[in-house]
């Protein structure tokens, strides 16, 4: 197999050899002279002399070289006017080329071009003939064919199924990239991003060439696109010539997979920016002037080094050339350190880092902390050695010259798109998942694969499973209702030591974007976001907290009851609107926090008191509780059969063999992929039949209570049902929500309500416990007390004011049930609300 290293070396040898082979090959070019006059020689009267030397001296190739590479030569930078008549190329009309430092050592590609370039130029388009056989040295790329292919690709490629964000607003049935060219002519930003997978579907061979020889192929693409563009829009004015930036080379790899074979190839890797350097002005071309005869010459920088001319070509004086900084060409460069994304890492290893160089306008495009996909050319260079020693450190330095950045987390901040986290599954994997989904008992299978170490609690696991899948995201922004929440929130409450924390830990470890916090340890700031002054840059930086970080994931909050009220209050917005508003230190913004909340709360008393309602037991505001779709109680059932099974489960836990454990781990990986796949590719919609079932379910729920004069369901419950039904459809990989989904949603919802909203006094399920914090019977009793009090006051006749304590005692004496002070006060408040009386201090006044 070919090692790229030797490949690279070979190319480099070409350069050395080309010095010798150039003269015969290069035609006595008109262009070089024209070019010389326009840029180099203009200020000087000695041009003829130079031209002579050009053809006579063996040192000439340098300047020939420069003239040859008008497409990418830095010489033209900034001198458009002089270039107009200088370029013979027809379509481009004097738009200056911009040097592509991202392609690295610029001279490499052009000078190998020479072998084919002159031919294609001189034969004036007859590439079909002899031109076809000519390839760039060391590659199999023929410039003419390559150009033609790429132009055909641009003109013909359509992608009717495109879901990419950039293509929004484009007619998907028209050639995609031609529309983008139109865009360029309007916007004037001379950069064309090309998706490599498009090229691959269009022409696999072209794609292969692009991947293997990016350094040669991309300039060819540049040429092609510019010809095409200026043919179409001859009059448009661009800052510089259009540059092609390929991205998402399908060879997308993680950093760990990079190996010596990737050197000099086009690669796409993902990672996180951890450090950026300051801007480095990198000399691209040094300008030398002879101090004796004032002869000028330019020397290109070769891998950070300048070969200083020892002899002046003009007057043959040795060591007379001096560098003139002002006339040398520089380009911007920035060093970026990229770290492997945490998801790509095998357990127990530390993340790798790679050095990335950004050039020109890509400088300062990314900040530390950004998640990016970068496309670029992987490079290796021998370590710089100590010039005094012949020994060499046998290690290469590697880096990537970036061609394209794509931020992967940007979309999370603005858009709804979930493509950013789309995991690439192999076909076999997808087939396997689909096969699993087709099984009738997939729902049970998955729920039992969830946290197998936790015993039973089947319904809770099912609830959490549905939470992991989530509902379908709907957008009603147009109609003014904003986003509907698609995430399912779940609260677990129950006795301490019923493995709630363990369940939370499991979920946290299962989902890619999970966060785990404890109510005791988290502050409002830690949950939401805070503004911090960066000590280095003195910039204000928004640091996001757990809720924002778990956007599109699950935020597990343990010890929910121990959270301070102010902290809890931020959850109100997050749990219904799914956004987080921040107004701090002059930064006012709304961040997305489309997170599911999985919370666990302990009862206020050490044990769950079955005689009290859920609200009374955990002492959480009902406004918050009503935002949970499902509230489960995890109680010790205290029943013999259960105990037996529990004991069996636990004992098994302690002696099961390694293999069985292995099997389960496999399950966890499958579960992870299953969820990821369903979340990204299944978007169920309600079927007619399902909507009917939902309506009926809702009406039924309301009916239950109406008989006893209470409201037993609110629209919020209906929304919960819809979400649960959608999630269940997702579990089945079904694009339609059907009545079985509604059935399960109903069942689960009822189950949860039965646990959490049963009024301990009556034994009925009473939704108002959760929505208003008080059961209907409690409210009824409150009213009775108030009425009794009113009667009492009325019986006293026309006394405008009464003593508070006196009244309390009277009421207690009169009523047969025990009346607490709270009840009395509540009754007073109720009467005050009726405007029947007012309480001032210790006296009660009638109105």
């Amino acid at each position, binding site marked *: 197999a070919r*090692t790229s*290293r*030797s490949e690279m*070396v070979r190319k*480099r*040898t070409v350069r050395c050899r080309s010095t010798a082979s150039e003269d015969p090959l290069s035609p006595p070019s008109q262009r070089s002279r024209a070019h010389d006059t326009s840029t180099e020689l203009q200020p000087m009267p000695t041009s003829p002399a130079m031209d002579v030397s050009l053809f006579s001296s063996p040192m000439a190739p340098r300047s020939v070289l420069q003239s040859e590479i008008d497409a990418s030569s830095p010489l033209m930078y900034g001198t458009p006017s002089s270039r107009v008549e200088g370029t013979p190329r027809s379509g481009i009309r004097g738009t200056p080329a911009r040097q592509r430092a991202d392609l690295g050592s610029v001279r490499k590609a052009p000078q190998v071009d020479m072998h084919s370039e002159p031919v294609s130029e001189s034969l004036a388009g007859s590439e079909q003939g002899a031109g076809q056989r000519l390839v760039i040295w060391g590659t199999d790329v023929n410039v003419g064919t390559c150009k033609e292919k790429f132009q055909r690709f641009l003109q013909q490629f359509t992608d009717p199924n495109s879901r990419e964000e950039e293509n929004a607003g484009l007619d998907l049935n028209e050639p995609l990239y031609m529309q983008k060219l139109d865009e360029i002519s309007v916007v004037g930003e001379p950069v064309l991003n090309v998706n490599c997978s498009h090229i691959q579907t269009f022409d696999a061979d072209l794609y292969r060439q692009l991947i293997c020889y990016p350094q040669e192929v991309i300039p060819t693409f540049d040429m092609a696109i510019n010809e095409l563009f200026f043919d179409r829009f001859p009059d448009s004015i661009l800052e510089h010539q259009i540059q092609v930036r390929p991205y998402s080379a399908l060879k997308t790899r993680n950093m760990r997979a990079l190996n*010596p074979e990737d050197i000099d190839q086009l690669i796409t890797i993902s990672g*996180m920016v*951890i*450090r950026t350097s300051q801007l*480095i002005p*990198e000399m691209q071309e040094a300008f030398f002037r002879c101090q004796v005869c004032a002869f000028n010459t330019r020397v290109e920088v070769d891998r*950070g080094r300048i070969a200083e001319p020892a002899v002046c070509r003009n007057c043959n004086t040795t060591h007379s050339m001096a560098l003139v900084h002002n006339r040398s060409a520089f380009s911007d*460069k920035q060093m970026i350190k990229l770290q492997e994304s*945490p998801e790509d*890492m*095998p*357990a*127990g290893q*530390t*993340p*790798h*880092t790679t050095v990335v160089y950004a050039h020109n306008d890509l400088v300062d495009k990314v900040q*530390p*902390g950004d998640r990016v996909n970068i496309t670029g050319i992987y490079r290796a260079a*021998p370590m*710089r050695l*100590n010039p005094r020693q*012949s*020994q060499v*450190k*046998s*290690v*290469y330095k*590697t*880096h990537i010259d970036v061609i394209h950045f794509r931020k992967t987390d940007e979309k999370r901040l603005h858009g709804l798109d979930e493509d950013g986290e789309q995991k690439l599954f192999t076909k076999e994997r997808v087939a396997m998942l689909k096969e699993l989904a087709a099984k009738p008992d997939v729902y049970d299978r998955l729920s039992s694969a969830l946290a*197998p*170490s936790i*015993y039973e609690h089947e319904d809770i696991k099912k609830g959490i499973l549905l939470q992991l899948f989530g509902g379908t995201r709907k957008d009603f922004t147009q109609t003014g209702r904003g986003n509907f929440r698609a995430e399912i929130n779940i609260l677990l409450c129950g006795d301490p*030591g*019923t493995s709630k924390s*363990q369940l939370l830990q*499991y979920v946290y*470890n299962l989902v890619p974007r999970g966060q785990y916090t404890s109510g005791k*340890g988290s502050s409002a700031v830690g949950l939401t976001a805070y503004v911090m002054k960066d000590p280095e840059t003195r910039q204000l930086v928004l640091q996001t907290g757990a809720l924002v970080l778990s956007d599109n994931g699950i935020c597990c909050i343990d010890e929910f009851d121990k959270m301070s009220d102010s902290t809890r209050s931020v959850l109100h917005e997050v749990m219904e609107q799914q956004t987080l508003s921040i107004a701090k230190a002059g930064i006012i913004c709304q961040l997305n926090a489309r997170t599911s909340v999985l919370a666990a709360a302990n009862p206020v008393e050490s044990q769950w008191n079955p005689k009290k309602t859920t609200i009374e037991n955990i002492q959480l505001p009902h406004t918050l509780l009503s935002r949970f779709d499902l509230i489960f109680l995890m109680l*010790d059932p*205290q029943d*013999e059969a259960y*105990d*037996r099974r*529990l*004991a069996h489960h636990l*004992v*098994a*836990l*302690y*002696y099961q063999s*390694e293999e069985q*454990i292995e099997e*389960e781990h496999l399950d966890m990986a499958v579960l992870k992929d299953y969820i990821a796949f369903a979340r990204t590719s299944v978007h169920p919609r309600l079927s007619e039949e399902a909507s009917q079932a939902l309506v009926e379910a809702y009406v039924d729920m309301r009916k239950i209570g109406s008989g006893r004069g209470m409201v037993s369901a609110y629209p919020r419950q209906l929304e919960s049902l819809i979400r649960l039904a959608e999630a269940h459809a997702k579990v089945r990989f079904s694009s339609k929500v059907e009545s079985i989904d509604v059935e399960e949603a109903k069942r689960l919802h009822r189950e949860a309500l039965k646990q959490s909203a049963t009024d301990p006094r009556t034994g009925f399920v009473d939704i108002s416990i959760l929505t208003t914090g008080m059961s209907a019977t409690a409210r009824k009793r409150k009213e009775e007390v108030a009425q009794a009090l009113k009667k009492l006051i009325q019986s006293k006749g026309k006394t405008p004011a009464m003593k508070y304590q006196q009244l309390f005692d009277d009421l207690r004496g009169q009523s047969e049930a025990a009346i607490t002070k709270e009840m009395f006060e509540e009754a007073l408040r109720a009467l005050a609300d009726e405007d029947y009386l007012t309480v001032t201090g210790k006296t009660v006044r009638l109105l």
Partner: protein
Amino acid sequence: MPTVHDWINNPLAVVDGLFAQSNSSPDWEKKVVEYFKEKLKLNDAHTWVPSLNDVPLYYLKPNSLVKFRCMVQDMFDPEFFMGVYETNDLTSNSKQVKCGKYRDITVGGQVDFNSRNTVTSERQTFYCVPIPGESQWAKESYAGTSQARVVPSTSYVPNRHKRSYEEDDEMDTQPQQMKDVSQGTQSSAESHGNTEPKRQETEAPSHDSSSAHCTSSLDLNFPLPGEKGPACLVKVYEDWDSFKLNDMLEVFGILSADPALRVIADEREASLLLDPTEVTETVEEQRVHSPPASLVPRLHMLYAQPLVHNNPLLPSSAPENDGDHLSSVLGELASVRAELHTYLTHVLMGDSLAAEYLILHLISNVYSRRDVLPLGKFTLNLSGCPHSSPYTEHLYKAIQQLVPSSYRLCMSLHNMNNQRMVPRKDYTANRLVSGTLQLANNTSLFLDETQLEQGQLDATGVRNITALGNLISWQKVDYDFNYHQMEFPCNINVLITSEGRSLLPSDSQVHLRPTLNPPNLEEYLSAVQVAQIPSQLNKYRIYLSVARALNYTISDEITKAVEEDFVEMRKDDPQSMSAEDLHRLLVVARLLSLSHGQNTLSRDGWMKAKQLEALRISRTQQQKSVSGNEP
């Protein structure tokens, strides 16, 4: 044995020879590894290889074969190097193809970068440190088994020692320590007088201070403060994905300490000025990634053996390969256990229940994980330890004598607020800055809560407490990677000593109830410790390591019985027996069986475990009521 000396003293010659034979077919690499593996397999060939752990670096010959017992502290980025390269000899104008594997620097002549024979290969660098908290006895014992004949290299001049004293202070503590070691073993073997250990005690801190002093110039990134010994950059050539952070390894490799590797600071700065574009590393990064070879030597790995334990008294291979050794240990296991129990009872001031639990704790081991749940951990909280008395220190010393590696963490406010416990990624230097909780598997972590006083915990303190809590509950440490956290599972035995119930979670709390009340606590404790002769101690050490590694099963019949029992217990009083209690009971039963050398749970064992738990719980409840009555 001249042959031995060939492959130990000049392994590169072997490598080159095999490379030359191969005619550039790639399987020579395998052959090299095979060759050395074979050589090391020969009876105790590995003991002839000098160890970096106990031989000072300047006694070792560069490019010789050495071994290093270490823990992987950090993993650097992979690097590409010239696996095969061609050199041009300018004088003779001849070309030569050479192999660059196992070398840092090319040899001979000008390297021809454009040669077609060049092969680029990849290798990975690990930053390895000696096993943190390794007990003195383990070090001594390892050093004692070594048969390596370290001949000072010819360039070694006696007075160089003196000259290098200042610059190589770090290294210099080594021979001194070695002397101590030999004295220590002699003295403990000969006499058990009271004076000897005292002397060692007074010496220990002075070592610490001196090593702290010299590491300040170059932070060698040891997880624990006051550690010493060489750190090493280990270059790994194959299967580096199989190694994990915090793995204990015994690396056999070629030592490379070429002074050319040292980049002199001035020179570096000069190059900075010259060529800012070429500099991809910050100064900090360079300091970390290419430290002077005299302090951090390079080791080119030929072969590494993962260490299941670092107990020198046991064969380093997995226990099942060594049946007869195991059976001999198992034979006298019961008596050793009884002796150890008596010894620990004495150390715990006559509290035999606490001693029982301490044994269980010492052999506990996370043997498996079920999703997030670590199984087999047994964190013990010894409450009732006197506040701010030297007692806990003595207790720790006793434990230190028993386990191969341990660390005592004083939970003083100052420590909690200032110590870095969780390792943190330093992005400027591009390395993982170690913390106290970066420990190898089966390290005993002794948390001394009696040192904690009232006061304010700051943000670091809270983070540290949370980290300790996570460590105890889930046996994992979340390393801080600035932009995200990464979870590293660990297997650390945590023992907490406290006055009352510890503020940290624990699996089991035992309230210490001393039955002895010696007038002079310190004297009594040192007497107890000294009374143990080394051979006795060695037995304990072997016992603990063997018991921990035993396999364990529960038969179906016993499973049934346990189920019955659980149901029965819950019938009487559901509150007294929760699922959590059953969890604990199962762990106790497991450890109790293992401590008696039983591979499987017997009915008897189960009953014993229950009794033990009942005893412990009743004591805790009594304690509660007692303290409840107190004002």
